């Protein structure tokens, strides 16, 4: 009991656990995760109805069910996954400030650095769950609705067995989580500057659009290595054979830089922010 009386912070595990439970009980989180699960289902049904034909990556799913989780993740990464993660980050700090719960946590006291850890854990939880849901539902829908040869036909025209196909899907899932953590870290940093969650969502949405536009302007080529969205297409590389790692590595490295900066700004800001 003496230890408890001298303790200045609650055990981190308990705090993080409470945060994750809170995130998972938030209706908005559940709705978003449910909507994300619909993406692979919608693609699968579309492919089943339309059959073959058409171009683009979605056409690769036809008769090649294992591609579905990869394609669904790639589609979702363009907008919906970043928004899902940004929404979690928006609620994490701006939302708590807006609902008046932030000061309760700070007075408890959670500790301002631990607060960032706790909130990061919540955002990571959402990012991981969102990706896993798309990947798992994608695999199920790919197998049940689309079907296929029980193997994955790569873009290079080679055929991968089930084990390697699952490995590729796991790889793209982990990579996607990495990209989302970059979005989440930046969103968390924005979240510490406002008490309106919508501001965070608007910034992330606007940022994605601006990055997309900047990335499409040829005379701004030099800017491309700086834009997080530049690497978003690298997930498709898991469908190539032999597996090229360059794009996955460079985009992951870029995401890491964004994570470091986002988390750094979050720590810096939370150390000063009014509760």
């Amino acid at each position: 009991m003496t230890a408890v009386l001298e303790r200045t912070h609650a055990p981190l595990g308990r705090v993080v656990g409470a945060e994750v439970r809170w995130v998972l009980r938030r209706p908005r989180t559940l709705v978003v995760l449910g909507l994300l699960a619909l993406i692979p289902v919608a693609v699968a049904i579309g492919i089943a109805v339309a059959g073959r034909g058409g171009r683009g990556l979605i056409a690769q799913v036809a008769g090649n069910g294992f591609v579905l989780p990869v394609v669904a993740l790639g589609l979702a990464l363009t907008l919906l996954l970043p928004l899902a993660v940004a929404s979690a980050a928006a609620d994490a700090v701006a939302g708590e400030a807006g609902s008046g719960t932030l000061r309760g946590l700070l007075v408890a006291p959670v500790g301002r650095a631990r607060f960032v850890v706790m909130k990061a854990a919540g955002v990571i939880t959402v990012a991981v769950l969102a990706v896993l849901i798309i990947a798992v539902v994608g695999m199920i829908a790919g197998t049940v609705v689309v079907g296929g040869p029980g193997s994955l036909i790569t873009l290079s025209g080679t055929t991968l067995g089930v084990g390697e196909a699952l490995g590729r899907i796991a790889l793209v899932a982990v990579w996607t989580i990495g990209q989302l953590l970059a979005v989440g870290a930046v969103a968390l940093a924005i979240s510490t500057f406002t008490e309106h969650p919508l501001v965070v969502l608007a910034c992330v949405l606007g940022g994605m659009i601006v990055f997309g536009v900047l990335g499409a302007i040829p005379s701004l080529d030099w800017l491309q290595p700086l834009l997080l969205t530049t690497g978003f297409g690298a997930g498709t590389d898991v469908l190539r054979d032999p597996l090229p790692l360059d794009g996955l590595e460079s985009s992951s490295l870029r995401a890491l830089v964004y994570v470091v900066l986002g988390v750094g700004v979050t720590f810096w800001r939370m150390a000063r922010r009014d509760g």
Partner: protein
Amino acid sequence: MSVTEQTLETRTDPSSGTVLEPAARLRDLRKTYGSVTAVDGVDLDLPAGAVVGLLGPNGSGKTTLIRMLLGLTAPTAGRVELLGHDGTQLERALPDVGALVEGPGFHPFLSGRDNLLRAAACEPRLDGDLRAPVDAALGRVGLTEAARRRYRGYSLGMKQRLGLAAALLVPRRLVVLDEPTNGLDPAGTRDVRRVIAELHGAGTTVLLSSHLLAEVEAVCTHVAVLARGSLLVSGELATLLASDGELAVTVDDPARGLAALRAAGFAAYLRDDALAVTEVDPPEVVAALVHAGVGVWEVSRRRAHLEELFARLTEEDA
């Protein structure tokens, strides 16, 4: 609680529980937002074990003062010492501080109990099963019945009670209550007063902010009056209320009473059918009247200074 010239360096070890050591000290505390000064050079001690009423009209800087006391807002200048910790160490005092600031803040989609469980998970002083202290706190504020309902459906009073429960999750050394009776019905107000009395009985220091003199008067031992960010007056409630006051004595025969008092050497005059006596020793006044055969109905102190001061403040505010 008049401001002493005690320096911050003379504090004793907080764990020794020295009763005389103030629970909090504010020194020349100042907060400005741009060109607006919210708190302007406040010096204030919260004596250990006292129930301190922080009085002031809306917008007088009460909440900003409390936020700086709790480390939620960084002061522009000045020092805060809380339970023996100051500066960057302020947070070390917070486990022993319960607070209800700026109204209750909870998540609408969780029940009152789940909200408290989440808060309890962050309390350093709690260990093991969190449900027992949560249920105890809910019981203490009379929310046991509604504990499992969603916060979304709570009335304003229930929300206020839940906020109070969160401040009471752990036995505290200091409890800070910012306008705790906002939105409460008379029964709720009585409950809050009971809780404050219990805290006072257990030796907890309480800081109660309010814009109602009556509320402060009902429960506080000390009072500090804030207006436009400055501390106008502070000290023991009884002293402040009595300070240049006079006795108002209601008797069955005012004319005879007046004669009796004057005969006994008291400075007395008749006002509003009551006897106004400038002598401040009530037993002597009553004894003189009774001795003269005058029936005494009521003796009370006129609280001229504080009441008039506060009335003036709130009128300006209105």
